[in-house]
């Protein structure tokens, strides 16, 4: 009975998704660093309010791909992008796109926790302060909600004004997630969020992702295939900048269509 209720058995097939269920639409996305082509014409549709995992060997372009979704790749001077990424019916590479605003809608959490060297409270409200919000009561509310969502509230509620650097690595990573959630993004990108964490903290983050799926579209990049199988609804397999296979997680891990995918998930390759 439990098994039938789990998301693995209830997600619709990708090709049967309605337009309104799509959070990100990627059309023929190609990316170059200088002369080197890093992403080869990728097209995929990432469903709304679901967890999508992106797997693949190191250097396959996973991080570069998700860096396109909040245009963090702009920071590289010699980066050139072709194709489209449509979020909210707009191509985010359009020259009129307000990039800071896009980044508040598409939150991102990095491989290593990177809290700012200020208090826990100031870390969480950082994005709001940037937006110019300074109403104390509003900020207090946001901090509490974000920390509760990130399952960190009980641990830090008494030391909100202590330096965030005093937290453990696992707590710091949840703080960074709370920091992203405080902006109420539509999409939350997690770039190998547990690779620097111990098993207990990893478990906490995975439970957290499970809770977040009802409100946010979550994209998680991971090297840990078990993790991808555990937390995600859909999985994309990238190899050398090409999207090899993209399907619901159940299919990928049980009946992969491509030889390469099977080789990778069974550990014979990569």
């Amino acid at each position: 009975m439990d098994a039938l209720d789990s998301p693995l058995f209830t997600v619709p097939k990708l090709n049967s998704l309605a337009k309104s269920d799509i959070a990100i639409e990627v059309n023929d996305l190609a990316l170059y660093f200088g002369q080197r082509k890093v992403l080869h014409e990728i097209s995929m549709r990432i469903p709304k309010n679901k967890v999508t995992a992106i797997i693949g060997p190191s250097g396959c372009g996973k991080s570069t791909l998700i860096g396109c979704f909040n245009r963090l790749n702009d920071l590289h001077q010699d980066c050139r992008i072709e194709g489209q990424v449509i979020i909210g019916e707009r191509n985010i590479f359009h020259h009129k796109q307000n990039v800071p605003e896009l980044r508040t809608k598409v939150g991102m959490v990095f491989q290593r926790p990177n809290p700012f060297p200020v208090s826990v409270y100031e870390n969480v409200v950082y994005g709001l302060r940037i937006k110019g919000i300074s109403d104390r009561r509003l900020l207090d509310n946001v901090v509490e909600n974000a920390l509760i969502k990130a399952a960190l509230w009980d641990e830090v509620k008494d030391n909100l004004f202590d330096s965030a650097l005093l937290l453990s690595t696992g707590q710091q990573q949840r703080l960074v997630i709370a920091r992203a959630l405080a902006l109420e993004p539509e999409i939350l990108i997690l770039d190998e969020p547990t690779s620097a964490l111990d098993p207990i903290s990893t478990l906490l983050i995975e439970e957290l992702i499970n809770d977040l799926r009802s409100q946010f579209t979550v994209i998680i990049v991971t090297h840990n295939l078990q993790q991808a199988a555990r937390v995600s609804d859909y999985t994309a397999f990238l190899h050398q900048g090409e999207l090899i296979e993209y399907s619901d997680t159940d299919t990928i891990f049980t009946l992969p269509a491509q030889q390469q995918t099977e080789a990778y998930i069974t550990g014979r390759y990569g």
Partner: protein
Amino acid sequence: MIKAFWADQEKEHFAIILSGSLVCLVIIALLSIVALIVSRGLAHFWVQPAYFVNINESVQGQTGSNAEQFLVGRKQYAIIQNRDVASDKVKRVWLQESTYMEANSGKPTVVEKSQITYLDKPERLAKIGMTDGSFLLAIPKQIQTPASMASASEFHVIQEQIEQLREQVVEIQVQHLSPLHELLAEMRIREVEATAPAYIKAVQAYQHWDSRLTELQQALSRYSLVVSLADGREMSVPLADTHYMQYPNAANIFEKLYYFISQIWLFVSDSPKQAITAGGVFPALFGTVLMVMLMTIMVTPLGVLAAIYLAEYAPNNSVVSIIRIAVSNLAGVPSIVYGVFGLGFFVYTVGGHLDSLIFPEKSDVAVFGAPGLLWASLTMALLTLPVVIVSTEEGLRRVPRTLRQGSYALGATKFETIRLIVLPMATPGIMTGVILAIARGAGEVAPLLMLGAVKFALLLPIDAEFPYIHLERQFMHLGVLIYDGAFHSQFGGGEAGLMFAACMLLLVVVLVLNTIAVRIRNRLRNQYQIFNG
């Protein structure tokens, strides 16, 4: 094989010993500098024994119609500046006689040791310090007060009475006479009738306080100290002119320590007297600290902004590389060149134009067009700018990329990221630059010589007169004082001791300013510790 191994080990030993002994050499050099400065500097304040000397001098005289050489005995109280006067090697002796009421104030006389026929340290010989910084060596006899004669041992008690009278004098001058004086001057300008009641009242009040002042001054003049000099003459010294009295030969260690500490305090808190051979160096200390602070206030924003552009915004091309090299090379430009630049550009060009803009009706006035504190600290800011730029850039580069990405990912623009994340985290680097700038700025003298640092400035750059901070004024500087002392003092003269004391004070100033900056940096470092590991 074994031979080669031993040879290698020997080479290594040799390298260790060589480099280690060089470190020793550096430490010895440093310690000897500090030891010399501190010992000579502190000796300036220590009680020196006072001697009674009998000197045979040959004097040109006339007997009848013939000019002849006479040998005349001269008795003198003096402080002998050769410490090892008892040694046989000493041929000449520098005698520092009383400087009170003397024409050759401050200059020691030189006599051949063979001329000294008698040398003694009288217990009752006193050194009497005057309020004008000079001193008198004499044996105090008694004190004349309006009421009676008192013994010299009551000096301190009577000195307190005098101090009260002095305070009254100052009070009348400051609180009553000078406001009335201003009032009268104003009335005269407004051409108030001499018969107007207000005018008459003011004049009467003025006369009242003036006569009160005269009374007090007369009362003061009735106190005097009667002393006997070396040749037996008696002399009467107004007690109002005396500052302290102590017996150098009879003093025990605690009295000597008390005198020592009070002399040090006098040195840092008093203004120079007797053409900077006595008194303190407070204006120079004040000028040095103020100049360094102004310099720091000017150089920090300039250097930080330049470094932000170079590290964050400037494109990575050859022009920027050339700019970077130029900045580093600026640090190597001799400071005298900066001085000439400051004089030519800031004082004559910028200052001159400012003057003609602000005071167009007066062509001969030079307020900003003359060397002063503002241009001196601005030039020093330029001189220390490269240091601040280089270390700030270093600090900015050390801020981890992940933190910048974290900030961008939360919707911050580049400017917001720099302002809120990068710059606060680079503050330890900025502080390092400021520390180096202070260390260089406090010790630099050459450019200041051209830019308004003078041997003696009448007024401090900050006072109670509007607008309180007078940046256009000339100022005194410890380094300039030392430079001047080194060139103009006779060896063994009073100025040499003062010069070493000023050196010591300059070292202390640099040390204190640096310690403050280092402490701030360490606190900032602790705050961001995790990222510096």
